[in-house]
C-alpha cells in the first residue's frame, strides 16, 4: 500500500501528463504552450525514455492509473513506441493528444494495443482552409482526418477536438457531422485559454466572446447532443452547463490527482510549467517523486485551499466543489494567484451573463 493511500490528505497520483516534446510540427495561432516549430522532431528536447520509465516506476505506488502523452506533438517523439510499451507493461491507461500528422495505421494499432487507450485529434474546421488558418501548416487538415480514420479502423473511438475561434464558430455542426463520417466516438469543443499565443489571439480580437461561447454551448448541450450518436463535450465552466448534462457526465477537474512531466524531465503542475517557473516542482530522476507529491508546497496549498480559497465569483459559485476553479494554472498565469477568479467566469459576471441560479446568496 502506498504512503499516499495511507494519508487521507494526499490523494492518489492518478494521471501524469507527459509533455513528450518541446517542439511541434504545427504552428498553431492559439497554442497555450507555444512550442518551437520542429518539422521532424529532431531539433528540440524530448523526454528521455529512461526518465519516463523511472517516473512510472515511482508513480505506480502512489496510485498511477494513466498517462497522457501530449506535447508539443507527442508522436514526434522518436521512441514513442517504447513509451507506450513501458506504460503497457505497467498496466496504466494510455491517453494521447495529437494533431494527427504522424498517426499512421501502424501507430494507431500500437496505441490500440495499450491498456484502455484513448486518443484525441485536433481538427478545427470542416474544411482545410479553416483548419489550416489556425494550425499554420498546409496539408495538416487531410492528415488529421486520415488519423481519425486510422484510429477508428484500429478499433478505437477517437475524439475530435475543435478549438473555438471566431473563424470557425459557424462550423460547429459541420465538424460534428464530419467527425461522424470519419468514425470518431466523441467531439470536444475547447475555448482558447488566454495564455502565450492564445493571449495574442485574444488581443487580435480573433476569439469569440463569453456571450457567444455560452450561446454555442447551450446549442451543443441542449440541441446538437440529442442529434448525434457521438458524445459531445463543450468545455466551458460547469456553472454554464445544464444540470442534466453535468449529471450524465463524469466531468470534473482532475487537478487534485494529476502531475505534469515536462520534456526536460521537470515535474510541474501541468504544461504551465513551461511558462511559469514557480509551478515547477523538481526534476525526475533527481528528486524523489513521492516526496514531491506529498511535500510540494504548491500541491499542499491546492489540496488545502480548494474550493474555499477561490476568489470572486468562483468563491461564490455553487459549482466550485466540482469545477475547482476551472483552471488554477491559467489563474496563476493571469493574476499571479491560483485562486482566481477564472477569467471566463469573471467576464461573464461583469457582463451580467453568470447564471444567477448558480451563485450563493440571495437572488
Amino acid at each position, binding site marked *: 500500500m502506498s504512503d499516499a493511500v495511507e494519508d487521507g490528505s494526499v490523494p492518489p497520483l492518478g494521471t501524469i501528463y507527459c509533455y513528450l516534446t518541446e517542439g511541434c510540427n504545427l504552428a498553431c495561432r492559439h497554442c497555450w504552450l507555444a512550442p518551437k516549430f520542429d518539422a521532424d522532431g529532431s531539433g528540440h528536447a524530448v523526454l528521455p525514455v529512461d526518465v519516463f520509465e523511472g517516473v512510472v516506476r515511482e508513480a505506480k505506488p502512489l496510485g498511477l492509473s494513466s498517462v497522457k502523452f501530449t506535447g508539443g506533438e507527442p508522436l514526434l517523439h522518436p521512441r514513442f513506441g517504447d513509451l507506450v510499451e513501458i506504460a503497457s507493461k505497467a498496466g496504466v491507461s494510455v491517453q494521447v493528444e495529437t494533431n494527427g500528422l504522424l498517426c499512421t495505421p501502424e501507430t494507431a494499432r500500437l496505441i490500440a494495443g495499450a491498456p484502455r487507450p484513448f486518443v484525441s485529434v485536433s481538427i478545427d474546421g470542416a474544411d482545410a482552409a479553416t483548419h489550416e488558418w489556425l494550425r499554420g501548416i498546409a496539408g495538416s487538415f487531410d492528415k488529421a482526418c486520415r488519423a481519425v480514420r486510422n484510429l477508428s479502423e484500429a478499433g478505437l473511438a477517437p475524439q475530435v477536438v475543435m478549438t473555438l475561434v471566431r473563424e470557425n464558430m459557424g462550423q460547429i455542426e459541420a465538424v460534428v457531422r464530419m467527425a461522424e463520417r470519419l468514425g470518431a466516438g466523441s467531439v470536444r469543443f475547447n475555448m482558447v485559454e488566454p495564455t502565450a499565443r492564445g493571449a495574442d489571439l485574444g488581443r487580435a480580437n480573433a476569439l469569440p466572446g463569453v456571450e457567444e461561447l455560452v450561446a454555442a454551448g447551450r446549442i451543443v448541450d441542449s440541441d446538437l447532443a440529442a442529434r448525434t450518436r457521438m458524445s459531445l463535450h463543450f468545455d466551458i465552466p460547469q456553472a454554464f452547463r445544464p*444540470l*442534466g448534462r453535468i449529471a450524465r457526465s463524469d466531468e470534473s477537474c482532475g487537478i487534485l490527482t494529476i502531475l505534469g512531466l515536462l520534456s526536460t524531465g521537470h515535474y510541474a503542475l501541468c504544461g504551465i510549467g513551461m511558462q511559469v517557473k514557480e509551478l515547477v516542482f523538481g526534476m525526475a530522476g533527481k528528486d524523489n517523486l513521492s516526496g514531491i507529491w506529498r511535500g510540494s508546497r504548491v500541491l499542499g496549498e491546492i489540496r488545502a485551499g480548494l474550493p474555499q480559497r477561490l476568489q470572486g465569483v468562483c468563491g461564490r459559485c455553487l459549482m466550485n466543489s466540482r469545477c475547482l476553479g476551472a483552471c488554477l494554472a491559467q489563474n496563476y498565469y493571469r493574476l499571479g494567484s491560483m485562486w482566481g477568479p477564472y477569467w471566463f467566469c469573471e467576464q461573464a459576471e461583469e457582463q451580467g451573463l453568470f447564471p444567477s*441560479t448558480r451563485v450563493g446568496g440571495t437572488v
Partner: protein
Amino acid sequence: MKLDDAPVPNPVVVLREESDDWAILFNPDTSAAVGTNPVGVEIWKQADGTRSLRDIAATVARRFSNVPEGASGEVLSFADELARDGFFGVAEGAEG
C-alpha cells in the same frame, strides 16, 4: 424517513428552477446546494407537510412517464438525503 411521513420543506431553502426543468435547492443560511432532476423538483413542490411520501410517490407516478416499479423507494431515498442535509423536516404528528 418512512413512506407515511409527510416531509416539510425547510422554509429558508430556495428552489431555483433552470431552463431544462432541473433545479438547484439552495439554503442561503448554510450555502448548501443540491441539484435535482424534474422528478426531484416535483417531490419538492409536493412536500407541504400534509402529503405523505407515499402520496407524493403516487403523484410522481401519475405525472411522469416510464416510472419504474419500486419508485416509492427512490422517493424515500431522495427525501432521506434532503432530510440528512437539512432541506426537509417531518411534520409534527404526521409520522405513521
